[in-house]
């Protein structure tokens, strides 16, 4: 079996996603290796988050199968760090960042934890915050943090348990171009230095392109995967969407995809 290959972290075969018999996308076959930085691109409602939910064991596939670490996904896998898409944090949320990151480490444990491990989780949380260049945010309330600061704290919350795979759902959605770049450099740094595999859902591929090993493009109920220069082509995307699509490149390597209404190329 091909699963014996050690560097393969995620494998999908004829995978289909959906809810209660409604198929959102199908026939996806791909594999992701250890230490790869992968973007999942596609329009709203294409089923990008559904892929994450399947990998987290929160939702079964409606067809085919997906394996992670050579096994069918199951809930609560400590080797996966997850940053869900969060629309906002209550501005009255006064809890400091460190407390949230600590819960990422010890929130699963029952009991009050008054006597046990008190310093272990604090230490782990501080290290995780340092790893995302956010130690100065430790004592600040979540409610006053900016979008970019919040994403770094959430990333620390996911990293605190030392995961091998990071699932990041739209971490760039509320960031300006500069913060976007900062966060991507940070994620790339973690991927390369720790050999962590990162899957990142995004709307716009341009800011991520310089870092990517692979892209999973989900649209029109179908999935195309491969290296970015293989997938983001006029031929592949036209086949995916079923209408004529033109992929244009500018002098700085940015891509414009013409013919998809809800796709807005970066106008940096």
């Amino acid at each position: 079996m091909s699963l014996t290959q050690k560097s393969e972290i995620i494998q999908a075969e004829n995978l289909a996603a959906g809810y209660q018999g409604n198929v959102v996308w199908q026939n996806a076959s791909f594999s992701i290796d250890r230490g790869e930085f992968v973007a999942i691109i596609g329009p709203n409602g294409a089923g990008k988050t559904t892929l994450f939910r399947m990998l987290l064991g929160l939702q079964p596939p409606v067809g085919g199968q997906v394996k992670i670490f050579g096994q069918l996904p199951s809930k609560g896998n400590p080797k996966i760090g997850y940053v869900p898409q969060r629309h906002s944090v209550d501005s009255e949320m006064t809890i400091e960042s460190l407390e949230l990151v600590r819960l990422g480490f010890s929130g699963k444990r029952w009991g009050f934890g008054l006597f046990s491990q008190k310093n272990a989780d604090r230490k782990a949380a501080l290290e995780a915050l340092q790893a995302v260049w956010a130690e100065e945010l430790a004592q600040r309330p979540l409610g006053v943090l900016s979008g970019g600061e919040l994403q770094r704290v959430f990333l620390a919350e996911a990293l605190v348990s030392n995961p091998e795979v990071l699932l990041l759902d739209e971490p760039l959605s509320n960031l300006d171009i500069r913060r976007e770049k900062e966060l991507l450099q940070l994620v790339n740094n973690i991927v390369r230095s720790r050999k962590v595999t990162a899957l990142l859902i995004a709307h716009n591929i341009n800011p991520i392109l310089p870092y990517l090993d692979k892209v999973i493009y989900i649209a029109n109920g179908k999935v195309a995967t491969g290296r970015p220069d293989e997938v983001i082509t006029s031929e592949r995307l036209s086949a995916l969407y079923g209408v004529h699509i033109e992929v244009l490149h500018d002098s700085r390597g940015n891509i414009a995809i013409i013919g998809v209404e809800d796709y807005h190329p970066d106008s940096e």
Partner: protein
Amino acid sequence: MRHDINFDINIFADLQQMFQYGFMQHAFEAGTVVAIIAGIVGYFVVLRRSSFAAHALSHIGFAGAAGAVLIGVSPVFGLLLFTSVGGTTMATLGRRAAHRDVHIGIVLAFLLGLGVLFISLYTGYATEAYSILFGEILGISASDVVLTLVAGLIILCAIAAVYRPLLFSSLDEDVAEAKGMPVLLLGVIFMLLVAVAVSIAVQVVGVLLIFSLMVTPAATAQRLARRPQRIIIISVIISLLATWSGLFISFYEPYPVSFFITTIVFAFYLFVRFAYQRIGSKESDRHVKEAGQHTSLP
């Protein structure tokens, strides 16, 4: 009886005099338990943004309390039954159900109507309805105190057991779920905690004023601290101070205890919101400026 009692500047002597009366002793005992429990559970209510659900539970409890009075048992049993069933239903309807204000509102209006029917069928109409709606802590019996204490201990033990998972799922439900936490079960446990807390708190402040102990102290405390355990301790202190001083004042003044309690917690809230916060916001501005200098990439 109360007319020959006068306030003395020696508070210790005052308390000694107060505790000679069984009803005052019971009121302080039950009030203390309720204040501690409401202060703790209230923090999770505020954190989960479930204050409307807590409010709804107390109104659902009104029908139960009225029904219990009608069939001749202590209202607290009707409260426990109705709030537990109501809370479990709300929690099992799903994670977003707690925010379905319209549906909750529709059901609670119906149950309030049912409560009105029960009360009208009962001949002792006015006083019973009044004490369920606004609390009657001075009428608490010794057996009610024991029941309150037992319920309070159960809540404390339950919270000690689920503290971290409950905190985690309240603060970050999606991540907690992905980590394999039983978020639905934790939601049910939370609602049951609120149900029991509401049932015993109704004796003190009544169905209509439940917010004063279940929400205001925690919402005030949240503005004063950044760590959950500290927030909970401050919340408990506020509700204890309000309950104790409310009882103390009511010994000398012929007005309802629940009025004093609601007014004192509100005063705390106003002070923290407007006077204290002004100092706090200056400090956090400074933090923002300092942090802004460090956020650039190394």
